[in-house]
């Protein structure tokens, strides 16, 4: 299994990394962690950087060496005082993907909807799910929080990094909606609902409300 020592610095993991996009500092990226560890860093050297990761999992898919970067970060986090911080993210969430497969969704999604895919669940099973969401987008004409790499732009809402004030959700949402034209937002993760409504000023529905 490839490990951090296999990182040779191609920078591909930076391309969809929310943490890097906010900071523009390679230390705040999986590549930065890996390279620092190759040069003798321990978790104490990287506590600030580790705390900024929202663990969306996009980096795992982009890494050409197939390093399990998010697991590497999670393992490092376990060795820091941050491990004791409770996440507000409800892990016992509904099956987002099943909800998105409901036929009713096809009927109710509109061209002027922005559909927010729950990023970490999407990335965890990307190869099976990306075609489904691509088809959903084509069939309905709605927008989605997908970037050019077909990774989901995570909101970061509810992540431990936001609790630790090391990740700016407002900035992230502004990037997510930049240049996208929409009148309504549909979210898979209930945790996104309130804050997205506050930041965007648009009506936000949970996907279960749409499919009835």
């Amino acid at each position, binding site marked *: 299994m490839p490990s951090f020592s296999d990182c*040779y*610095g*191609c*920078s*591909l993991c*930076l*391309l969809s990394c929310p943490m890097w*996009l906010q900071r*523009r*500092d*390679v*230390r705040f990226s999986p*590549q*930065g962690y890996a*390279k*620092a560890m*190759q*040069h*003798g*860093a321990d978790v104490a*050297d*990287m506590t600030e950087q580790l705390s900024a990761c929202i663990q969306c999992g996009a980096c795992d898919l982009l890494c*050409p060496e197939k390093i399990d970067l998010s697991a590497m970060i999670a393992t490092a986090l376990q060795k820091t005082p941050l491990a004791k911080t409770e996440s507000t993210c409800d892990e016992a969430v509904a099956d987002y993907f099943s909800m998105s497969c409901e036929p009713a969704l096809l009927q109710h999604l509109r061209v002027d909807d922005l559909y927010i895919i729950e990023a970490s669940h999407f990335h965890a099973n990307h190869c099976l799910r*990306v*075609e489904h969401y*691509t088809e959903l987008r*084509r069939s309905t004409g709605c927008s989605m929080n997908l*970037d*050019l*790499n*077909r990774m989901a732009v995570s909101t970061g809402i509810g992540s431990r990094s936001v609790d630790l004030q090391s990740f700016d959700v407002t900035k992230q949402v502004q990037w997510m909606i*930049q*240049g*996208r034209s929409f009148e309504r937002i549909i979210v898979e993760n209930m945790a996104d609902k309130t804050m997205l409504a506050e930041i965007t000023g648009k009506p936000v529905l949970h996907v279960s409300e749409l499919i009835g």
Partner: protein
Amino acid sequence: MIELNLAETAALSSLPADPVAPDALIGIPRQQTNPSRWMGEQWPEFVLAVKQQGIEIRERRVDTGIYVTDAGGLAYGMPHGVVVAGSAEQVAALMKAAQQFAVPVTVRGGGLTTEGESVAFGGVLLDMTGMSRVLHVDKQLLTVRTEAGIFWCHLAEVLRRDGLDYLSAPLNLSSSVGGTLGVGGIDVNSSRFGCSADQAISLLVVTPTGEIVECSDDENPELFERIIFGYGQFGIIIEVTLSIRPYTPLRMHYFYYASLKPCVEDLLMLDVSQTCDYTGILTMMDSAITLLVAFDSDEREAEFLAQVKPKLRGFGELMFGLRLAAAFSWRPWKWKEALFLLRRKRELFPDLQPKHHMQGDKMLDRSVVFSRAVWKHWGDRHMVIPDLATNRDKFIEAVERGNAVCRKYFPYYTLYCVGIRLRDEHRAHYELSSIPSDATGWAYGCEFEPMYNGVEYSRDTLQSFKNEIYDVGVELETSYYRFGGMMKGYIRRALGDAVVEKHLKLKQKVDPAMILNRDVIF
């Protein structure tokens, strides 16, 4: 006195005998190594001066080690300290202090150099990705103003939200805009739009002595002339205004050839015909060569299909497969090659048309698709890609001779060929660059990339391979794309003393302490 022959000398040495003719280039070391390390004279005084101006400089090994090598993975070096670019004023202050204390500054964007050009052998490493935001998109004038440390992928991401796209960029998502403009940048549409560097309308530059200057064809044109294709010698690109265009998905066609010459001839013919929006050659082996053709519009495609396609000598996938199978069937000694081609096809082809990047038969995100395929199927820890850049007349010979060198060193390798439309008004930009001085209309580039297939090759083998490719260029009196860093020994042989001396004098004038991107060219 006892005279030893080469073999005897090698036997006494800890180094193996050089596999390339030892006296092919008199005075140019055959086995290139890292430049000598800057030893840190006046470093503490420099750091103090920089910190007094509020500039953060990172000196911990865990921070400097991030930049230890580049995409080539052959040159290794550590800076004394790292500065992440934050503003033109910060970079200007850094450069003034660097001049005062004669501290080398190495500028790095995506780090996608292959010869150690973005590796710091001591001194300061300036990480430009700290300045990587799009500043303004002008949808009417079709221009974008962006910070230079931005990756082309992120630029595409921002532009796409407005239904726009860049003109041409390297097929590598993590190349930076500033780094690309410094060396050229080629794409499969460069035969139509020229290289990436020719998209630049204006630049904000910090000079080696710390002045902040805007330059373009009209404003400070001499500086603009030197910065574009300047290999980072004459200033640091901070901001860039680029031409852009409306985004269009594209429709691809692939034609297959069993030998290089007809394929290259067809590429040359297509470029002159100007009937295609994208053209390029990508080989799996020199017996399975793909001519890639693509179009932005249905009208252009229809015109091509009616008028030009019948003239091409390549085959469709099915017909080519049948011909190849027939050719292999009575040559059992080549079945290993056939198995490789089958495996390669099975792995590669789905990645060249993934459903989620397609809309019907149109490709939505060519830069993402090609770039990911490049990293997955060609990229490796040692991205060794020597190249030859020639005029039209020399191109076929360059490709065939380069291919013969590849065959000598590696069982598996790939060639990537494109045409580059030249801009007559930018001829001065091309003076010390990959664009050969004898090219008119189009220049042509061919990259030769080994595929390691799990085999470990020594650094000396890889270096010898690069040398032998470049020796072909010297004989053909042509140029190269990657002539900096470890390959700089070839610059004078390829480009001539007069041009190099001229640029050296210009460099000494604008960079008195010779500290900016030391050892890249001079």
